[in-house]
């Protein structure tokens, strides 16, 4: 009887593993399809692929237009990363560390942009820029990204802040540190893992953002925006090629970022 119960538990666990694996296959299937398509020699996509080649990768890499777009994407992502991490670190302290009147309201307001459909937010921003007479460009796109990404990064860092004992800051004060010293010597190093994940999130979410860039980048284009324009206009193998490159870039960054985070934790005294 008891062993049958254990066997039942094991079977449930196997089913859960199986289901998760199945969903993961589905999650990665289209990304794989894109990668396959990008290595097709033919101008038109057909499966099974007759001749593999890296022609479209070469063409994509050589394109001046795509070079510009990649540069714009990186520029926006970098600006967004730096600004959002600074703003969100303080935002997370206000979210999770301090008790202040209005905190509850602030907590709810800050997550509203996450809960807001991005296409509508993008259009609203476009309208807002227009109303005050700001020409849309990569800078307005970066601002739009910030509106959505700062709340996300705030939550990411807030989770780290929750696990942080305020008594440590008080002890540092007590030992004679100024407020700035406390922040530099105690708060920042302890929050660093959260800030680091926040930076990765900020960069990668900006890098992959489509709906906000679509409406707020004006004449400038980012990778997702350019890809969408080409998708609508008709098939070119440069779409899956650039899409796969962007995916690979994100994967490399995530892996590298994760590795750096891991190494930094290792280097800490045990």
């Amino acid at each position: 009887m008891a062993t049958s119960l254990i066997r039942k538990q094991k079977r449930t666990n196997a089913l859960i593993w199986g289901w998760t694996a199945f969903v993961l296959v589905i999650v990665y299937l289209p990304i794989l399809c894109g990668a396959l398509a990008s290595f097709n020699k033919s101008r038109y996509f057909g499966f099974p692929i007759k001749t593999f080649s890296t022609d479209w990768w070469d063409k994509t890499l050589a394109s001046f237009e795509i070079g510009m777009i990649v540069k714009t994407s990186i520029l926006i992502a970098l600006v967004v990363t730096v600004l959002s991490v600074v703003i969100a670190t303080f935002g997370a302290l206000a979210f999770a560390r301090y008790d202040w009147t209005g905190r509850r309201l602030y907590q709810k307001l800050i997550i509203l942009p996450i809960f807001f459909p991005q296409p509508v937010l993008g259009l609203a921003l476009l309208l807002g820029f227009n109303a005050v007479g700001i020409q849309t460009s990569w800078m307005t796109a970066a601002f739009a990204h910030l509106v959505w990404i700062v709340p996300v990064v705030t939550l990411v860092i807030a989770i780290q802040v929750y696990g942080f004992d305020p008594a440590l800051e008080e002890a540092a004060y007590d030992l004679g540190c100024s407020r700035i010293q406390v922040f530099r010597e105690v708060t920042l190093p302890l929050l660093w893992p959260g800030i680091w994940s926040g930076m990765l999130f900020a960069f990668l979410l900006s890098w992959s953002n489509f709906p906000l860039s679509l409406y707020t980048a004006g004449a400038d284009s980012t990778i997702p925006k350019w890809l969408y324009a080409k998708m609508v206009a008709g098939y070119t193998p440069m779409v899956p090629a650039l899409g796969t490159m962007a995916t690979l870039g994100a994967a490399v960054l995530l892996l590298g970022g994760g590795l750096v985070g891991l190494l930094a934790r290792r280097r800490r005294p045990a």
Partner: protein
Amino acid sequence: MLQTMTAPAAEAQPRPILQLVGVRKTFGRFAAVESIDLDVREGEFLTIVGPSGSGKTTLLRMLAGMDTPSEGYITLRGELINDMPANRRPTCLVFQSLALFPHKSVGENITFPLKVKGVSAAARKARALELMKVVRLPPDYFDKNVMKCSGGERQRVALARAFAYDPQVLFFDEPLSALDYKLKKALEKELKDLHRETGKTFIYITHSLEEAMVMSDRIGVMRAGRLVQVGTPEEIYGAPVDRFVSEFVGEVNTIKVKRDGEEWRGVDVDGRFTLRPPADGAALGEAFVVVRPEYMRFLKEGDTADNRLTGTVYNEYSLGSRIQYQIRVGEKVMLVELSRARALPPGSDPVVTIGWDAADAFTLAG
């Protein structure tokens, strides 16, 4: 009312309700519990004490059915229950965290096991009110949010919930450890009363020997996964089997001694000592003399004692009604504890002679 059983009679051999034979639990290569044999008597209050990490919680989880032993047998009234899952065992655990369901009221918490059994709502409520009376909770608490209850009240809710299951054995995993001292003392006595009133078998684990002493019929001392000694509180206190138990049970003075012909000579202090022979009668070459501070006394000119040492008082602590002195004897520090009435008069000579009788000390193997 509660299923009442006859209180543990002083008959020669009451039938064990729960029996452990060679129970062992390993996690990977680490053995949390090493080969435990134990008979739990029907209706007794047994406490397992031990420092944190001694394996007592693992032992309890195996008894409650939340872990299965890697080796050995656990039987309940003669039935092997090694692999019987917790929800089929007629036993119930009161968790350290109490594990009260925060989304349910006091009443819903208490009636939970009855709901599981499919008892009707009216019967559940009637039973819950009975149990609330037993654990001294006012009846209007039935609909109260359990998270709004105080620490002591939550304790009672957890107890009532466990009783509602009508278990044959109740387990307690240090449920009092988070409470303040006064409340803890009161609840210890209440728990003891409840034990007597209900006649159920209680198995309680704690790291606090004080708690164990107050409540238990028998105490088992655990160390590094083993049960080192099982006995009545008096046995544990008065005749510990080794230094670990003796030190765990309270503060002690320990002197290492070596056989020197017919006599014993101190190794870490100068002097010759008269010893009570060790409990197991073994012939020892080296031994430890263990004396509790309250059996030490100051010797004046002409006082007699089997053993004596001379040292310097360098500290005294007030323990309320009692005073403890720290006395440096050579490199060693000895403790003497007296009632306040017998304290050293102020301004007396710090050089003192302390002594004890062989009958008040015990001898442990070296």
